């Protein structure tokens, strides 16, 4: 018997040829979600191989462009004792080299042991200290992945505890912000809104980012085209009972940008895809 290879294989297509009515309905719903909520924070997508753990930390990824997508799934987790937030300062300081070594020893392990971020590629992009707390942001640009790590590390000590760690991002490369604008990256909320951390990218003309989160005003650390900030309060409008995920919590943040010429752009909107 003589047959052509493709013809032999064709009947084995595992994909149904037509969508069912319920699939069509869900497809329409998905489309409306995508196009009608361009400014909503996106959020996690359940990893195909390991369930998302939600205890303690919610996550949204409003990537450079808007809806953050996601593929890398957000696996967020926290452990350790509750942090002492009383020492928090609205203006950051740079951690010392010793602080960074101590924090990196703990956070680096988290990054390397996480399935959703490439531990070999992810590098510390930003670090900041606010009181006793040191925040590290690890990044890969393609895919656009942020791993945020917050530790309690009183200055001048090598003590590190109260680790908060989250990973989020998209499957595509990071978008570049315009010269005088910014793109909003991951937003993590931990301990039922007791604290939040966010990062993103800024254009070359942006020298400062101030974040308003409810009644808290935070001056972000801005360096090498990125910003990061941590504050002792929520990031989302909704209470912690609203889980991460599509249609999940809405951000409660606004941004002021300071440009190199001294101009302050109030309520700046993050750059979104056209």
């Amino acid at each position, binding site marked *: 018997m*003589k047959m052509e290879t493709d013809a032999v294989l064709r009947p084995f297509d595992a994909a149904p040829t037509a969508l069912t009515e319920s699939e069509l309905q869900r497809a329409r719903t998905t489309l409306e979600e995508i196009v009608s909520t361009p400014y909503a924070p996106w959020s996690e997508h359940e990893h195909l191989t390991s369930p998302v753990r939600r205890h303690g930390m919610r996550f949204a990824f409003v990537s450079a462009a808007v809806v953050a997508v996601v593929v890398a799934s957000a696996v967020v987790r926290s452990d350790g004792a509750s942090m002492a937030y009383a020492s928090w300062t609205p203006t950051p300081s740079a951690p010392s080299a010793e602080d960074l070594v101590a924090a990196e020893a703990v956070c680096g392990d988290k990054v390397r042991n996480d399935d959703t971020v490439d531990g070999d590629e992810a590098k510390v992009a930003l670090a900041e200290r606010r009181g006793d707390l040191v925040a590290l942001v690890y990044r890969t640009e393609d895919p656009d992945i942020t791993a945020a790590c917050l530790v309690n590390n009183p200055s001048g000590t090598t003590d590190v505890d109260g680790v908060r760690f989250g990973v989020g991002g998209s499957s595509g490369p990071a978008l570049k912000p315009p010269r005088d604008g910014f793109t909003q990256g991951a937003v993590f909320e931990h301990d039922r809104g007791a604290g939040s951390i966010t990062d993103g990218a800024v254009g070359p003309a942006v020298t400062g980012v101030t974040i308003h989160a409810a009644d808290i005003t935070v001056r972000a650390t801005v360096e090498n085209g990125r910003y990061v900030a941590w504050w002792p309060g929520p990031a989302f409008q909704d209470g912690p009972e609203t889980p991460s995920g599509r249609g999940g919590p809405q951000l409660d943040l606004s941004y002021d940008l300071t440009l190199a010429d001294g101009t302050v752009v109030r309520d700046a909107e993050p750059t979104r895809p056209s």
Partner: protein
Amino acid sequence: MRYRALYSETYRDVLRFVQRRVHPSHAEDVAAEVFLTAWRRFEDIPRRPDDARAWLFGVARNSLLNDRRAQGRREALAVRIAEIAPLSTSAPDDIAALRADVARAWQRLSSTDQEALSFAVFDDLSSSQAALVLGITPVGYRLRLLRARRSLRRQIEPVCHLTDSQTEAHL
């Protein structure tokens, strides 16, 4: 709105592409992620419909590969085939036997071979579009396809003589 048109024209194909590669229970979630990426990167999407479709397939593939990193950083995605191919009850016995052999042979192929064959047979991609999905040159893809077809033929040759498909002739 161009995005809506793209979604309407390609959703079914993207979902089917994913259904061939993951458990059906996950396929719609993955397709949704693909279109969220498309929304976010709309300006990056090729204007030609067939190329846009291939671009979306590439996003889907990368998404699935990212999710499987923990399982060994595979560079190719295995492709599922139907457990029982549609077959009329009046089909000759040798056809039925061939199909059983093809199903077994498919499982013995590498993920790379399955992927190369699937692009041509199930996903209906041209060589240049398949190359776009894989991020390789069209010649590189055609070489992969050639090797995949040979592998499949070796697996089932005792039952049936399979002839080259037309794309092999254009290497």
